[in-house]
């Protein structure tokens, strides 16, 4: 009896320490954002929303915020479309060779981001596409689309092909079958994948650090630049805004998709 209680207390303490460890960097950033002074104090010595006003008025932050949103939206759109089409193709692929094709589509997940980023920068340099939106979009698309493929392919009903065949037997043409049967059946997985692609693109630093240029700086890259060279709470304020937006988006999305399932798929699969 005594032993069980001791184990319970130990377990509780362990869980509390782990949670504190995981959340500490986030708590600190939120805390610092409420400073009044231009110095980074935690806990803040005087509370104020000063740095929020500063950040939301400054084009140094609103510009990259807009860039990130635009890039993520375009990437999510393309990744959703491409991922859906490819997921449907995978389901139809003859068993022979399916694994090869799957590996070919998922490969970007398994290559370190730094390698993909450097290679893309070199390639885009040869194509004269460095430093613009196009390069960023291409880079983000390549690293996010495998996740959509996997979500769509994994979230597809097992009898999709039978249902399509049934529709065909009942006289629906290929286009009608696709629009009225296949698409509605994979839609939940598609929206989950698309949402995930948006978040991945929006948060990305690894690829963006190579591909961002004077004409296209994303928010995470701007944060990186600030963290390296200056030290006032504006970074904390914009980061908190970002976290708040993510939480709101996740809560909204939770009603339509299982965020948890999404993430376990991502974490079990590999890299960010």
């Amino acid at each position, binding site marked *: 009896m005594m032993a069980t209680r001791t184990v319970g207390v130990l377990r509780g303490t362990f869980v509390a320490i782990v949670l504190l*460890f995981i959340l500490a960097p986030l708590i600190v950033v939120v805390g610092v954002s409420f400073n009044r002074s231009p110095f980074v104090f*935690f806990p803040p010595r005087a509370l104020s929303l000063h740095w929020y006003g500063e950040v939301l008025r400054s084009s140094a932050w609103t510009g990259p915020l807009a860039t990130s949103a635009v890039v993520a939206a375009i990437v999510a759109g393309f990744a959703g479309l491409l991922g859906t089409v490819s997921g449907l193709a995978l389901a139809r692929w003859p068993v022979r060779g399916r694994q090869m094709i799957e590996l070919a589509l998922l490969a970007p997940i398994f290559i370190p981001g730094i390698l993909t980023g450097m290679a893309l920068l070199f390639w885009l340099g040869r194509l004269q596409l460095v430093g613009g939106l196009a390069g960023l979009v291409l880079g983000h698309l390549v690293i996010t689309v495998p996740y959509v493929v996997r979500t769509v392919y994994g979230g597809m009903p097992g009898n999709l092909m039978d249902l399509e065949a049934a529709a065909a037997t009942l006289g629906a043409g290929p286009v009608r079958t696709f629009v009225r049967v296949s698409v509605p059946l994979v839609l939940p997985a598609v929206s989950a994948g698309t949402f995930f692609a948006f978040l991945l693109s929006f948060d990305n630093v690894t690829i963006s650090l190579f591909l961002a240029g004077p004409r296209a700086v994303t928010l995470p890259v701007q944060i990186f630049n600030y963290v390296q060279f200056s030290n006032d709470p504006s970074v904390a304020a914009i980061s908190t805004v970002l976290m708040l937006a993510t939480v709101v988006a996740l809560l909204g999305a939770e009603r339509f998709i299982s965020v948890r399932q999404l993430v376990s798929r*991502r974490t079990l699969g590999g890299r960010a």
Partner: protein
Amino acid sequence: MAGVGDDGTRARAVLLIVPILVVLTLGFYAPLGFFLALSFLRYDPAHLYLHQWTFANYHVVLAESTYRLGLFNTLRLALAVAACTVVLGYGIAVVLWRSTPGWRNVLITALIAPLFVSVIIRTYGWLIIFDNRGPLNEMLRWFSLGPLHIRSTLTAVVVALTEVELPFATLPIFAALSQVDRALVEAAATLGEPPLRAFARVVVPLSLPGVVTGGILAFSLAASSFVEPLVLAPPNLFLLATLAYDDINQVLNWPLGAATGFFLFAVALLLTAVSVGALRLTRGGRMV
């Protein structure tokens, strides 16, 4: 009629796969292919590279002291992160495994929620925490301890990376534990094994594949990370990933940066192959 294996179906499948293959070729396979070729071309300060095949770049990576030190530090860092995440992750996985479904959901959510926050924000958080006048040292001063100069050390990078990679190590271990048949644990207890011994002899061996998967993931993610080191490591701490980044961005020796990048990837692949092989051997030997 359209069925699986039907000629029409196959043709449609091929047609549907073409767009993504075009995109991946243009944005992934071709860039990586050219980059690999670049790593075998001779560096030239004026033209970036010359069309002369050479192993010189890999020779620099393998022989020059900076890069050797980089390899040594990278292995040190990645092993430390893998060890920390596996130990912590194993504890968390066991807690998850033994908790009620309700608690399990809460804990998993807490574990994965930070994944939705950009790595750069979390790294910034650690930068604040480790500052000489940051909350950690304030707290230590409260107890008349410290100050600890952690900012700009390898330790800072290890801590931050452990936090970032923790879910990647925990979830595979939890997945392996979930597959352990509880009847086995009960059988061991019935046969008179004390609980801890039963755990060590029955559960731990069965969860090893999860430990290896999680450890490899954490290792390779840590080895190729460069954002956390750029922010938290001292400038004189050479790592393969940051050396590659500097070759590209500062030194502008592209062929050398390419060779460093591919060497880094090869190291991670080699370690993966060795651990998977070792796991197979031990499992084969013990007939688990």
